[in-house]
Structures are given as structure tokens and as C-alpha cells.
């Protein structure tokens, strides 16, 4: 076939070249690396002023610090601030005393000026994190290590609210101001901060590939130090967060030891499969995620309290429990001491359903739409069970699929465009029941306020709870709020769950010192790695 050597070379030469290059590529494989690889949805936000979803807290807690921090036993603990007090105990004026000698990643010290700048920046920009700092009327530096906050209303839980109001390096940000609408501050360095590091947190940002990955390296001079956990456990030197949510790929990566901690919501069977593999454990560090449906209280027929109660009586939430080991849900999650363990939860009861329907101004077959955002296994099960139960009970149900976050968020911008029942997952954002009440129930509208329950009485009670300094009194107020919400039924409680993650067993989590709150639960400062075990599992 090949008459000459030249012809042979013309045909096989390119093939040999490609094979050689492939072999060279194969030889460059990484050895056992001190790195933790985890996955997440995209995009990430590395600018503290833009934090709006729980996955944004993940990068935030690595790069930045706040004045306070969620404590493992509940509440807050000192962080950049070593102490604080409310002037006259009213909750209007707060003084925070900063720790001295805390360094930013560039070696400069964290001072009161940085704190003032960071909060003012978030207020002026008005972006995703604005809701955390919105009560602040004025902020000033009394001296290099003392900051005063004056609020526009009493907020007794202010130290908890600002847990994730992160502090930026003012001098560094000021060197990178871009054109913008904030006078001499321009864009407040927004363009630069999004892709760079101005923090003091346990990890420094090394790589930011937009929509693809973030890479961090350990900050050796972190102000809390790096405690020794003994037994071959060393601090994690590098963290990589990849924008991957596709369950099949994520599962294969975990099995291949290319993903150390996964946050994909897998079906129960997949978790069981992973748990059965040597070297992979299931772990639930995040606590108390509450799964609910918000009922649109400004759209017929769910604007009628009796109709809403009837829907609650038609639903059997316990059918969802075996799927991922969840438990009955509460309006205020059980992670908070203020939750009401005696609140009477709804159970499926068709007789009571009929009693409520008899009092309703709408017939049972009034059309209802349940929204089904695609891509979350929790929502898949919730919607399936609710639709089946309501249909079996005689309601006229239509399920509407939503692709992506955009139609969900924009559809919830008006009660007219929103469905009757919208599934949500409350993840505690900061360590106080106010996180659920203020972030979800105070405001009507938007995805988190998709109940449209604009009740002056409820708002007044939430404000009162926020302003009440005495812990027992606050607890009583919050428990009454929980009872009231259950009575008015602007939601259907599904369950409470501690989301499970699959994790390589060479990753150790300090569960005694880590809080189960969003963000804090994935602060890899509290994780360690056993490189010997990793080498053993990788066969190296």
C-alpha cells in the first residue's frame, strides 16, 4: 500500500506526533496535592457589596472577615471586633472595639477607617448586600480601633445581622477606583474588587476565572492562627471552587477523587451509592435548611386564608421525609433557640380541608399554578408530592416548569406574574431568627418575599422583635410570630433538612467549632486534610 518511506512518514508521521504529545501530556499529571476541590453554581461574587445568594458567602468567608462571626453553639462570637456594646442598651447606637494587629493580605493593618469605608461603600452602592446594612443611618471612627454605628431604628440583633458585612482594605480599594456615579469615589472600586482580593480572611484569592473557578491559597498570617489538629491533619493549602452543578459529572468526579466536597443535590440513591464507596463519607455540616412553598397571598384564590389553610390540610409533608432524612419543618428553623417547638403544624386532614373550603369564597376547582424551578432535586420531590396530594384531594393543579434563575426572580417581581405556590429553601444567613423573619417575612415581593404577605401587624411584631433587647421577651415575640404565620398560612411547610454532602474521608471537619450557618459551614479554615490518607486512596 505504501510504496515509499516518504509516503509512510506522510501518513504515520502526524499520528506519531499526536501520540507523542499525548504521552507527554500524560506524564505531567499532578501528584498528591494539598488542595480541597469543591463545586458550586455560578456565578460567584467576590465583592462583599454584591453578595446576594448563599453561594456568594462561600467565597466571602474565605477572603474576608466581618466584625462578628457565627458561633458553633449559636449566636455570634467576636471576630474582627473583640467586643461591642449597645449604648444605653437600646439597640440604636452601637460601639464596636476592634482587635489590634489584624492584617489584610497585603500586610497592612485593619483599622476603624477600613470598617467605616466598607459599610459606607455597601450603603452607597446599594447592591445585593444592602439589606444587611440598611438599618445604618451613620457610621464613624471614634479612634483607630473603635467604630460607632447609629441606626435609623432599634436593632438589638445588629451584631448578628452584620456577620457577613465584610471588611475591605480601604487603601487598596481606593487605589483602584474606576469611573462611576459616586462622586469622588467613582465606582467604589467595584470593577477591581470583583476580580481581586482586598480582604483579611484565611485564604487569598489567586485565580478568578469568571463562571468557571476560583482558587485560593492559605494566608499564613491569618489573625486567628492555624491550630494544630494533630494526627496527620494539616491545614488546607489551596482551595478550588469550580462552577459545576451537573450531578452526573459531579458524582463521577467524587468517585475519581477529583472532587473532595460536593454540593450538588443528588437523589437519595446517589448519596447511598457514594456512601458505600470506600473513602467517601456523607456529611451534613450545614444545618436547618427549611423547605417551604410560599403561597401568593395577592392572587386568587390563595389570597383567601381559608383556601390557604385547606391547601395545607391537603398536603402530607411526611412523604418527603424518607427521601433525604428530613424532619418536620418550622417557620423559624430549629437551629435558632427562638423557634417554637409547640407551634401546631399542619398535617394532612381532608375533613379539616373541607371545613376550610366551606368557609372560602372560592370553589375548590379554582385553577392553581405550582412553579417548578428545574435543577434542584429538593424542589423536584417537593413539587411532585404537593402536586400529587392536591390533585388527589380534588384541587385543579397545573405545574409550570421554570428554567434558570432569571424567570424565577423576575416572575416574582409582581404578584400577577407569579404562580400560586413557589418552592423555596431557607438557609440561615446569619445566626439569629431575624435572618428568616426579616429577610423573608418583613418584605413582600421578590423571590424571598414571594408570599406577598404585606401584613402591618406582622411587620410591627418583627420590628418589635428586632428592637427587643431582653432575650426571653424576644423569644416570646418570635414564637408568637411563628404561631401567627402558621395560622394565616401564607406558606406550606415541607420539612427541615441538614443538607448532605459527599466528602472524601481524608477531609476532616472541625464540627465542634464550626457553625452550621450558611457560609460559616463552608469556611475551610475549620477543615483539615490528611495527605497520607489521600495518597493511600489515590494509590500513590
Amino acid at each position, binding site marked *: 500500500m505504501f510504496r515509499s518511506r516518504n509516503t509512510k512518514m506522510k501518513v504515520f508521521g502526524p499520528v506519531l506526533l*499526536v501520540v*507523542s*504529545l*499525548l*504521552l*507527554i*501530556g*500524560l*506524564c*505531567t*499529571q*499532578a501528584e498528591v*496535592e494539598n*488542595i480541597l476541590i469543591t463545586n458550586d453554581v*455560578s*456565578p460567584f461574587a467576590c465583592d462583599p457589596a*454584591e453578595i*446576594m*445568594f448563599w453561594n456568594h458567602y462561600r467565597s466571602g468567608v474565605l477572603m474576608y472577615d466581618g466584625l462578628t462571626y457565627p458561633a458553633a453553639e449559636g449566636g455570634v462570637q467576636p471576630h474582627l471586633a473583640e467586643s461591642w456594646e449597645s449604648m444605653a442598651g437600646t439597640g440604636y447606637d452601637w460601639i464596636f472595639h476592634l482587635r489590634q494587629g489584624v492584617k489584610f493580605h497585603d500586610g497592612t493593618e485593619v483599622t476603624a477607617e477600613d470598617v467605616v469605608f466598607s459599610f459606607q461603600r455597601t450603603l452607597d*452602592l*446599594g*447592591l*445585593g*448586600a*444592602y*439589606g*444587611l446594612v*440598611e438599618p445604618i443611618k451613620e457610621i464613624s471612627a471614634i479612634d483607630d480601633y473603635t467604630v460607632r454605628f447609629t441606626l435609623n431604628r432599634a436593632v438589638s440583633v445588629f451584631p448578628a445581622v452584620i456577620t457577613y458585612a465584610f471588611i475591605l482594605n480601604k487603601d487598596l480599594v481606593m487605589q483602584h477606583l474606576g469611573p462611576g*456615579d459616586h462622586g469622588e469615589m467613582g465606582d467604589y472600586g467595584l470593577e477591581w474588587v*470583583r476580580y481581586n482580593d482586598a480582604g483579611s480572611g484565611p485564604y487569598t484569592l489567586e485565580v478568578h476565572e*469568571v*463562571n*468557571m473557578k476560583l482558587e485560593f491559597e492559605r494566608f499564613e498570617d491569618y489573625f486567628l492562627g492555624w491550630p494544630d489538629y494533630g494526627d496527620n491533619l494539616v491545614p488546607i493549602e489551596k482551595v*478550588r471552587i*469550580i462552577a*459545576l452543578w*451537573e450531578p*452526573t*459529572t459531579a458524582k*463521577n*468526579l467524587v468517585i*475519581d477523587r*477529583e472532587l473532595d466536597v460536593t454540593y450538588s443535590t443528588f437523589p437519595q440513591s446517589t448519596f447511598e451509592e457514594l456512601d458505600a464507596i470506600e473513602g467517601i463519607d456523607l456529611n451534613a455540616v450545614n444545618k436547618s435548611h427549611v423547605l417551604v412553598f410560599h403561597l401568593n397571598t395577592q392572587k386568587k384564590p390563595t389570597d383567601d386564608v381559608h383556601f390557604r389553610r385547606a391547601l395545607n390540610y391537603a398536603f402530607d409533608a411526611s412523604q418527603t421525609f424518607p427521601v433525604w432524612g428530613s424532619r418536620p419543618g418550622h417557620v423559624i428553623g430549629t437551629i435558632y433557640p427562638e423557634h417554637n417547638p409547640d407551634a401546631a403544624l399542619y398535617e394532612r386532614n381532608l375533613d379539616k380541608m373541607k371545613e376550610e373550603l366551606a368557609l372560602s369564597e372560592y370553589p375548590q376547582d379554582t385553577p392553581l399554578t405550582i412553579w417548578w424551578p428545574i435543577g434542584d432535586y429538593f424542589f423536584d420531590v417537593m413539587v411532585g408530592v404537593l402536586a400529587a396530594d392536591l390533585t388527589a384531594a380534588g384541587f385543579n393543579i397545573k405545574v409550570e416548569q421554570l428554567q*434558570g*434563575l*432569571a*424567570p424565577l*426572580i*423576575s*416572575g*416574582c*417581581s409582581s404578584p400577577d*406574574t407569579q404562580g400560586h405556590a413557589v418552592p423555596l429553601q431557607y438557609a440561615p444567613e446569619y445566626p439569629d431568627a431575624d435572618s428568616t423573619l426579616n*429577610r423573608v417575612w418583613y*418584605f413582600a*415581593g*421578590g*423571590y*424571598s*418575599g414571594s408570599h406577598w404577605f404585606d401584613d402591618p401587624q406582622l411587620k410591627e411584631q418583627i420590628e418589635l422583635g428586632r428592637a427587643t433587647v431582653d432575650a426571653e421577651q424576644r423569644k416570646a415575640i418570635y414564637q408568637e410570630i411563628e404561631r401567627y404565620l402558621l395560622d394565616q398560612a401564607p406558606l406550606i411547610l415541607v420539612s427541615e433538612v441538614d443538607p448532605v454532602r459527599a466528602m472524601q474521608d481524608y477531609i476532616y471537619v472541625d464540627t465542634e467549632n464550626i457553625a452550621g450557618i450558611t457560609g460559616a459551614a463552608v469556611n475551610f479554615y475549620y477543615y483539615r486534610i490528611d495527605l497520607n490518607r489521600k495518597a493511600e486512596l489515590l494509590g500513590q
Partner: protein
Amino acid sequence: MLWHILKFVAKRFLYSVLVLVGLSMLVFVIARMVPTDVVRATLGSHASERAIVDMRTKLHLDDSLPVQYYHWIKGAVRGDFGISLMTKRPVVVDLKEFLPATAELALVSLVFSLIVGQVLGVVAARYRNSWLDNVSRMIAYSGTVTPAFIFGILFMLIFSYWLNIFPTMGRLSSGVSPPPTITGMHILDGLLTGRWHVVGDALWHILLPAVSLGLSAVAQESRVTRASMIENLSKAYVRTARANAIPQSRIMFRYVLKPSLIPTVALMGMDFATTISNAFLVELVFFWPGFSRYGVTAMLEGDLFAISAVVMVLGVMFIVMNLIVDIITSILDPRISLAERS
């Protein structure tokens, strides 16, 4: 010949501009017909009202559609497609980052489909109506009916998971730094800068997704090559060559294959553009940071400016590829004049 080509290109360019203007209007209007509050979706539900109003004003979202289009086209002509609401940076920066990744994937998959398609087509033509022809047909049909992402998941399962030969995702291994950016394609940039280990690593990563993507094109090309070769094999000059005792293999590869390539070349051009637009699921499965994945994510997130830019880029690609294919075809077969093709 050169003069004819230049005249042809100029005429096509003028037509293309009209097509692109029409396309831009269409995609602009359609993107804004979707009832998405992009500002709330971008800033989140806890942003201040002031920030929401400011952003709406800045993006001209409260203006009429013609005014919005005017502002957008004014920027687009200068290469400014606006800011992506997803990535929060200029769309053109996103395109520069993601397009080369998909172009590289598409090119490698085309090379694969060309080589395998030609081999299958030649074998099928040479041994037509035999079992080899049937096997080739079976492979071709499998490639046509099976979506690329199914192949992707299958290959990942077999070669990455069970056999552990190929990586599961990404363009490069974690310990390998990308080469200096010239084209944005790691293989080409690695070759140009002499980073052989990067080239090898990039090839190792691109093989599975490229093969997954290329299999459907293999089907088309093998069938077209087979048909074309069978037609040419019955020509008089082939009979003459046989009569002169020229070996069959030489006849196939030297005398018949070149003219049989003409329809394949035409296909390849359109395949390239189609591959880029269809690569989304393969990019998702293999975590490939590409243009298709970016485009579909933009659509799901309601990122108006990214959607418009992605569709415009695809439109330009189809037009340019069509033009290149016409020119190459006329070079391959001088009997086909550009005047006829235009």
C-alpha cells in the same frame, strides 16, 4: 482568478451586512420580549430601590425599543456589546475568553470527523454493498441518531471513570498553566510557544469532548464521501486508469478522492458553525469553558446583552464559513465559477 475572488467577496460582504442588520433587530426584539426583570435578577431582591432605578436608567431599559436598539447598535458597531449581567464585565471580554475554547473544540472535532468520515466513506465506496459497507453505514447512522451529549456521558463513564485513561473535565490539568494567549486555543498557542507538555495535556483533555461532538458529522461526511466516490468511480478517466493497470488503491486516493472532497468541504464549513452552536451539552458534561455553554447560560439567566452578542457572533460565523467554503470549492474545482455560486 484573484480579481474574481475579490469581486465575489465584496458582493457577499454587502449582502452579509444587510443580513446581519436584520438578524440584530430580530434577536434584539426577541430577547426583550421575554418577561424578565433583568435588573432585579442581577442585583438581587435586597438591593436598594435607588440602585435598581440607576441600573435601569444606565441600561436604557425604560426607553422605547427603537431607542434601546439605537444605543445597542451604536456600541456594537464599535465592538461594545454592553455589560453581561451574569459576569458583570464587558460581553466582548467574555467572548474573547470563551469563543476560542469552543472554536478549538470544534476544529479538533472537525479534524476527527473529516479523517474518520473520509476513511469510512472510502472503505464503503471501495467495498460497496459488502459487510464493510454495512458496518460503515451502521456507524454513520449511530452517529446521526445519537445526541452528542449521550456520547459524552458514555465516553466519560468508560474512559474516565472505569478505565481512568482520560480526564473528566476541563481544558488542562490542575498543575498545568495555560500557555501565553495568542489565539486563546491552548493547543495552537502551545505549539506556537513551544510548550509541548501543554499541547499534550490539552490534547489529552480535548479528545473525549471532540470525539463526542464529531461523531454526528462523521455520519454525514462518510455518506457524502461514499456517494461522491461511487459517482466518480464510474467516470471514464477511472476506467482508463484501470485499463492502464494502475493499482486500485492509487486510483482511489490519488484520482478519485480529491474531486469527491468537494461536497465534503461544503459540509465542513457549515458543520463548523453548527458544531459551535450545538456544543452546549458537551461543554456542560465535560465542564468545558466554552462559548456555547456561555450562550445557553445567558439565555437561561435572561442576560440580554450576552444573548444578543452570542447570536450575532453565530450569525457572523455562518456567513464567513459560507464564504470560505464557496471560495475553497471553486479552487478545488475550477469548473465551478464563483459567479455561478453567487
